[in-house]
């Protein structure tokens, strides 16, 4: 064991409901002050994992340590965690102040201390004027803040967020997201944040854990996950990716250059890590493409535009190789690029933006 | 950590369910079994202490009550009353339930509260002073008197049940039917009737049962010579307790009503809009 214990350490956690394997051998850890997101589609086990950390669901095997203490058999009420629920789960019969102070009263703080802490937390989340109201009298955004304040008030070792923004409208969501991140940085609490929204995960986390079917698919910093997805699932789930099978024709390991054949024709891929085999998947992002201006570039391909979506500063194009209309890729150009549907466009995909996935084709 | 085949929780749960069944048997099944047993005691071989079981069992008691007591008349009265009461009550309740279920107006919640008044006036107070009122008004028909009394005291139930049914009618279906040019009759048949039917039937049955079971008004207004099943049962209880007769009448009163009530409950469950319209 390390001398400095992690704030949270999950080791080979497994859990099944009947025949459904909700978590399988999940291992990760978070150091003090980190914000970790658990990202994945619904049913991937991210909420189950959060509830296991909170103590609502006992693990079948594996262990969870919070600040170096094994949580086996410790009920939720005795764990140093506080959760922000997706439904907010505010107590409808208690005022905002009593909601925020609920956990403090359970911890037997004096009335005066509770009052001071409640008002300071309420001020931080901008609820000072709402303290005497009942949750039913608040807007969705305000209710969300009460849930946040209530969890923050107990100053937990680990804060748990279960899709806290999913019931807010888009504009408010961005705002509250930044606020949560700012509060988390300011107070330095460790947080585990569950979401199915990849942009949320990329925007606010120190570490992103992508899950599927109860298993961790990839774990890393947001840039790493985005730049170097390990498989088709992660590549596709994070942002937009064009995924294609490639077969390696020649390798230049020293320079990190690989010539491949793919549905586009022949291409060059520059990669620091060598590919897993000779026949595998590779991906590239729409925004990495460049409309060719002169001749003589590597990886220059001619596409036929099948659909064009104008997005303001950008333009989203659905394209197919001229000789094969059955495959479809997405590329992005400047909004001002003069292309229209049915035309062809010459595009360069820079060799270092195409990435091998760790997924060989049998 | 391995999971046992039965966790300790399962065992506790199993035991508590078993305990509940046991309590049920002692508090309901056993007394009923006793009633059945008593109704089968042969009139010429009384069941007396210290015999643990009746000496002779026969259906003679049933036959005797049927031929010698006012039970046939009471049954006729009860069922005739119940039929009138449920028809009248439903007719009166439908318009009001429609207003409660499908319209918004000022004073709606007050009006809804007011329909509940009969539930908070003690039954014998309304029975006795309703009979005083009938005397003052010179109404001497016991049948009519009881029909009025029952109708008023059972209206709250019918209004409540039908209000729920009317709220379950989906406005989008009504609008769609009208948008497609359906006549009012077609709108009613396609959008209203399928949802309302179970509720209507259920309230009909429930009012029918409650009318048969009603005791205070039937007893006071009907006294002394207009008998219903509950008043006959009452006469066998209390001071001149004739146990085998009471057992017979109890079974006659309970069994059909339980059957009807189970039907009504099934109807109310099927009235779920998701079932009727096939959409959640």
């Amino acid at each position: 064991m390390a001398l400095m214990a992690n704030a949270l350490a999950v080791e080979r956690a497994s859990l099944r409901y009947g025949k459904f394997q909700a978590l399988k051998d999940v291992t990760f850890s978070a150091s003090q002050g980190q914000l970790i997101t658990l990202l994945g589609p619904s049913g991937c086990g991210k909420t189950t994992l959060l509830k296991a950390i909170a103590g609502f669901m006992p693990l079948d095997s594996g262990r969870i340590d919070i600040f170096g203490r094994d949580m086996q058999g410790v009920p939720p009420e005795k764990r140093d965690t506080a959760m922000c629920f997706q439904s907010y789960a505010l107590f409808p019969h208690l005022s905002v102040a009593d909601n925020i102070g609920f956990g403090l009263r359970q911890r037997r703080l004096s009335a005066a201390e509770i009052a001071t802490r409640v008002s300071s937390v309420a001020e931080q989340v901008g609820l000072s004027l709402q303290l005497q109201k009942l949750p039913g009298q608040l807007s969705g955004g305000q209710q969300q803040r009460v849930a946040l304040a209530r969890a923050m008030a107990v100053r937990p070792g680990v804060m748990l967020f279960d899709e806290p923004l999913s019931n807010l409208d888009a504009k408010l969501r961005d705002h509250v997201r930044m606020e949560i991140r700012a509060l988390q940085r300011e107070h330095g609490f460790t947080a585990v944040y569950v979401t199915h929204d990849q942009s949320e995960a990329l925007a606010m986390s120190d570490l992103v854990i992508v899950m599927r079917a109860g298993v961790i698919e990839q774990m890393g910093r947001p840039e790493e996950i985005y730049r170097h997805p390990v498989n088709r699932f992660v590549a596709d789930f994070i942002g937009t990716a064009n995924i294609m099978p490639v077969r390696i024709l020649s390798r230049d390991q020293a320079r990190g250059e690989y010539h491949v054949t793919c549905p586009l024709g022949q291409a060059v891929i520059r990669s620091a890590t060598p590919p897993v085999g000779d026949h595998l998947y590779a991906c590239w992002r729409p925004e990495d493409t460049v409309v060719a201006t002169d001749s003589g570039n590597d990886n220059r391909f001619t596409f036929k535009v099948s659909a064009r979506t104008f997005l303001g500063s950008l333009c989203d194009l659905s394209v197919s190789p001229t000789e094969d209309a059955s495959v479809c890729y997405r590329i992005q150009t400047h909004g001002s690029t003069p292309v229209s549907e049915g035309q062809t466009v010459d595009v360069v995909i820079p060799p270092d933006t195409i990435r091998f996935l760790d997924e060989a084709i049998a | 950590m391995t999971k046992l085949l039965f966790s300790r929780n399962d065992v506790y749960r199993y035991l508590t369910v078993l305990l509940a069944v046991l309590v049920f048997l002692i508090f309901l099944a056993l007394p009923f079994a006793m009633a059945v047993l008593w109704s089968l005691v042969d009139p010429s071989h009384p069941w007396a202490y210290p015999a643990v079981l009746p000496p002779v069992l026969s259906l003679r008691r049933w036959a005797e009550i049927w031929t010698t007591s006012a039970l046939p008349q009471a049954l006729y009265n009860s069922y005739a009353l119940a039929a009138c009461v449920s028809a009248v009550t439903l007719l009166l309740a439908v318009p009001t339930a429609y207003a409660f279920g499908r319209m918004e107006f000022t004073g709606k919640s007050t009006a809804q509260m007011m329909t509940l008044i009969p539930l908070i006036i003690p039954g014998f107070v309304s029975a006795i002073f309703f009979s005083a009122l009938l005397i003052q008004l010179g109404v001497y028909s016991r049948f009519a008197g009881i029909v009025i009394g029952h109708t008023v005291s059972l209206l709250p139930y019918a209004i409540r049940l039908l209000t729920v049914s009317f709220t379950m009618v989906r406005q989008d279906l009504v609008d769609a039917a009208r948008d497609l040019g359906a006549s009012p009759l077609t709108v009613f048949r396609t959008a209203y009737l399928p949802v309302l039917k179970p509720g209507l039937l259920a309230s009909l049955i429930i009012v029918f049962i409650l009318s048969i079971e009603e005791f205070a008004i039937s007893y006071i207004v009907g006294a002394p010579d207009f008998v219903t099943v509950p008043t006959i049962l009452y006469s066998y209880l209390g001071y001149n307790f004739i146990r085998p007769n009471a057992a017979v009448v109890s079974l006659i009163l309970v069994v059909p009503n339980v059957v009807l009530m189970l039907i009504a409950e099934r109807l109310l469950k099927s009235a779920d809009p998701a079932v009727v319209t096939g959409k959640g």
Partner: protein
Amino acid sequence: MTINNALKAYLLLIPGLLPIVAFMSLVVGMAVSQSIGFFNFAGDDHFSLLFWQQMLTQDQFWRVFFYSARIAVVSAVLSVMLAYPVALWLRRPFPGSDLISAMIKAPILVHGLVAAFLFVNFISFQGFLNVALVHLGLIARPIRMQNDPYGIGVVVLQVWKNMPFAFLIIVGSVRAIGDDILDAARDLGAGRLARLRRVILPLTLRSLQASLILIFIGTAGDYSFQAVAGPININSMSQFMLRIQMDNAAHGWNEAAVVAVMLMVLSLFGSLAVAGLMQFAVRRAGR
């Protein structure tokens, strides 16, 4: 348009609401007027507080009044106290829970008089209870349990009949409490007892009060359970009212009317008082 609509709504209310309001105000009006000397069946109509004075100075009346009040309070509180833990237990469905709910609700389908008969039959000399006790060797010979002087039989019957109602009302509100709310309380450090005191009880207070009120009113006005299984030496309010109306020839109606008004007063204020006390108790528990 909207005025038209409202008018239509009010017209639709007439068939259902008018009979109720008319009937009830006539009946209650009849009771109140007769208690102060109007609509006399014997003698002239004139205002008089004589009947009130006669009734309220009778010891017997007050014994009856407090007897009914006591039975009502005890029955209402016992029914709710029995129903509440069961409702909590059945909050989440589990194998067998449907069966248990169905068994709990069964007494609703049994007519009050039939229940009274079943009960009397059960505890009488020749009843199951006595036979069982004798055979178990607990008593030497059957004992008389019918019409016990404390009204225990009546309370047993009332609880038997009313507990399912309390259960139905309470289980609805208990089930309406979301799992998330309880999880949130747990997560914030509330143990089993704290969750009950500070979350579950306050959130189910309204249904507790509703069931207390309904059972109190029903029990205070009881006639049949009292007549069949109650003590011989004391009447319930309804029984007393009916007896006075029949026995006291001349002014029976007027005096019965006084009892009727007092019964309504008892129902109204007694049930509100019980509900108020419940609110106080729940608030206290939540501290």
